[in-house]
């Protein structure tokens, strides 16, 4: 993330790493998750799901910060993220709510 | 605080008797909207419900009143509303919701003359066909017709019992005269009043199906919060209660909805007879018009006619077989009702030409004089 100045506590902040899960067959291809992902990690897949829509896929999965925004804006319960258990052991799990 | 059952002799109106019957039957929720001549039911319920830890709420219209009692019914509460013609019309859509979702509740209709605002508020029995078919679609319903304040008390209890047993809204089709007249009402000891509660589900919650018929065709009904996570919808639904948009699902649902009533007619239908043993002229009547019929039978007998009275306590479902049987052996059937022919046509249909069916009706506003029946008997027989 770009800052106009380095935050004073930059050293203490640990950015959570997330894994994004996509239930492709629930997707109806609205693109909200792709458009509003703050890290812009998603894109439409070329393939079709069983309803004939292009589901999203993670172009840059390693950039996911587990913010849950895709999960919360998805009207279809088709995408969600979870904390990557490997990312950090010191950071407490982020309460998604 | 008064007890639920006010055992003793009372001199009260039919409306108040309906309210006392409801309280005695365990009614704990009343959704009201004032309308003459049914207002006194609401007034008395407002007074009495706190005694039994129940809730009274006056809603913003009759649509809200019936919607509120349907909601209350799903908390496991016995609930009721009371209205008259115009309010009854407003309730029709949600009456259908009650039928479709198999929600037990009681609706008292203290009938007045219509159409529209009509004669506020003189008597009438013109809502009988609306009671049967008023909500859109095909369905079965139960309607009772009290002829006195004492009946009002018992029929309201009976209405609750039938509605709980068969999971269907039950209509008590009183009328202005019955509702407003005061007579002696004997309220028995609480132990003498038999009450029926809706069947409750047992067994595993994950296997529970909301509309899976029980032995008598009626599905057990959980309350909100019991943990069954039911979905209740007015859409055509399958046995789980889930919307099912198919011809097959519609047929299955209608089979269940109609079957639970049609297959239990013997248990549901109640009639009373007066001097019917040797009668060859049978007066068929219900509600306040029963009183016309009773006097007419006695007067006709004095004149040498073998008249008898069949009183329909349950008007809907209609006692078709009974009318058919009677038609086989009598010279004629005379329906007495304060309208210009509603139940009469049912009698005629069931008589099926085996015996002629006649109507002594009126446009409404007052009880029919027995002389009108006698005139018809003299002219015809």
């Amino acid at each position, binding site marked *: 993330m770009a800052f106009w100045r380095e935050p004073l506590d930059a050293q203490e902040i640990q950015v959570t790493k997330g894994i994004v899960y996509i239930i492709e067959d629930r997707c109806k291809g609205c693109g909200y998750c792709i458009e509003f992902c703050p890290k812009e990690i998603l894109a439409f897949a070329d393939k079709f799901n069983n309803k004939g829509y292009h589901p999203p896929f993670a172009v840059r999965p390693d950039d996911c910060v587990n913010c849950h925004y895709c999960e*919360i804006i998805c009207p279809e319960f088709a995408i969600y993220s979870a904390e990557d258990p490997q990312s950090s052991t010191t950071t407490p799990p982020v309460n998604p709510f | 605080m008064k007890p639920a059952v006010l055992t003793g002799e009372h001199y009260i109106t039919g409306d108040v008797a309906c309210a006392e019957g409801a309280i005695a039957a365990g009614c704990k929720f009343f959704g009201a909207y004032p309308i003459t001549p049914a207002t006194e039911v609401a007034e008395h319920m407002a007074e009495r419900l706190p005694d039994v830890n129940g809730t009274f709420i006056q809603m*913003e219209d009759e649509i*809200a009143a019936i919607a509120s009692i349907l909601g209350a*019914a799903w908390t496991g509460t016995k609930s009721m509303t009371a209205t008259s013609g115009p309010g009854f019309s407003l309730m029709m859509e949600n009456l259908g919701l009650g039928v479709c979702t198999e929600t037990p509740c009681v609706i008292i209709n203290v009938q007045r003359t219509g159409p529209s605002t009509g004669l506020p508020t003189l008597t009438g029995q013109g809502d009988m066909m609306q009671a049967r078919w008023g909500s859109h679609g095909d369905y079965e319903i139960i309607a009772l017709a009290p002829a006195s304040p004492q009946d009002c008390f018992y029929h309201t209890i009976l209405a609750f019992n039938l509605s709980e047993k068969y999971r269907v809204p039950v209509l008590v089709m009183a009328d202005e005269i019955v509702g407003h007249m005061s007579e002696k009402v004997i309220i028995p000891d609480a132990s003498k009043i038999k009450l029926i509660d809706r069947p409750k589900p047992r067994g595993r919650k994950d296997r529970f199906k909301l509309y899976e018929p029980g032995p008598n065709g009626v599905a057990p009904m959980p309350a909100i919060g019991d943990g069954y996570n039911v979905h209740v919808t007015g859409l055509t639904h399958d046995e789980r209660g889930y919307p099912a948009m198919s011809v097959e699902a519609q047929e299955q649902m209608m089979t269940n909805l109609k079957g639970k009533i049609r297959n239990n007619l013997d248990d549901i239908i109640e009639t009373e007879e007066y001097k019917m043993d040797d009668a060859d002229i049978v007066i068929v009547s219900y509600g306040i018009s029963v009183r016309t019929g009773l006097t007419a039978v006695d007067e006709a007998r004095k004149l040498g006619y073998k008249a008898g009275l069949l009183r329909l306590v349950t008007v809907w479902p209609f006692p078709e077989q009974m009318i058919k049987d009677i038609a086989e052996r009598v010279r004629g059937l005379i329906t007495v009702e304060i309208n210009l022919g509603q139940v009469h046509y049912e009698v005629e249909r069931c008589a099926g030409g085996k015996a002629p069916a006649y109507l002594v009706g009126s446009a409404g506003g007052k009880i029919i004089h027995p002389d009108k029946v006698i005139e018809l008997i003299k002219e015809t027989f």
Partner: protein
Amino acid sequence: MTKNPKKYNKQPVHPLDDLIRTDRIPHIWCSGCGIGTVFSSCLKAIKATEIPYNRFTMVSGIGCSARGAGYVNLDSFHTTHGRAIPFASGIKMANPDLKVIVFSGDGDLFAIGGNHFIHAARRNMDITVVCVNNLTYGMTGGQVAATTPNNANTTTTPFGNPDSPFNLPLMAYASGASYVARWTILHTRDLTDSINEAINKKGFSFIEVLSPCPINYGRRNKEKPLDTLKLYQDNTIIKNGADPVTADIDFNRGVILGKFVDTERNTCDDMYASTCHRPCSDD
């Protein structure tokens, strides 16, 4: 047993799967429709209260939004058009321990059901009303609603809507609601927090959520779903505590979002208990 904890052989279930009837998914809502987002927020809010699920019940009327009740794995009621609030009022008054949520649309709650809304607010009925406002009747194909902006095109206003829309937060406030807020589906975190707050609030709570109807409203008014969301992003202003009089919807001027009202007032069931349930009576 797990030999390689780095790899997930099985994908974990969606965090809301315990609250949805997964056997009924996919739901009927169109691609780009915002109702699913509002619904999802509502379920997250329910979850976040940590109140046992069997104390919740969801009631809805008729319309696209009203189908929500059919997807939530709670005791849920899909009632008649416009009558969700009186049905919910009956539930609440008969069992005040329940948390009753009405989830429905603008046509259902404010046209055919408008009278019930103002009276439930007047009584301060302790229920939470979540209104998905998509500015139209979606299920019937996009007719003019009581919330459709002036001049908008709908199937029944082919020359533009000659009528003016309701200001819903103002109506809720004027009718006596204890909690009034407005969000859009883009502000879904605020929305979730707001619904959570409303569920915990004693009294009549009302949350309006602006949501796109791309098929039946957007299409006729030259708005693609993402255009609508851009409007929500660029032409809205969050002003908590704003005067509801200023809350009319005009995207040219900027639509005010936020919590407008949060007051304390005795609820209908409390008042009934204290007024009518006498400890003893003279007679």
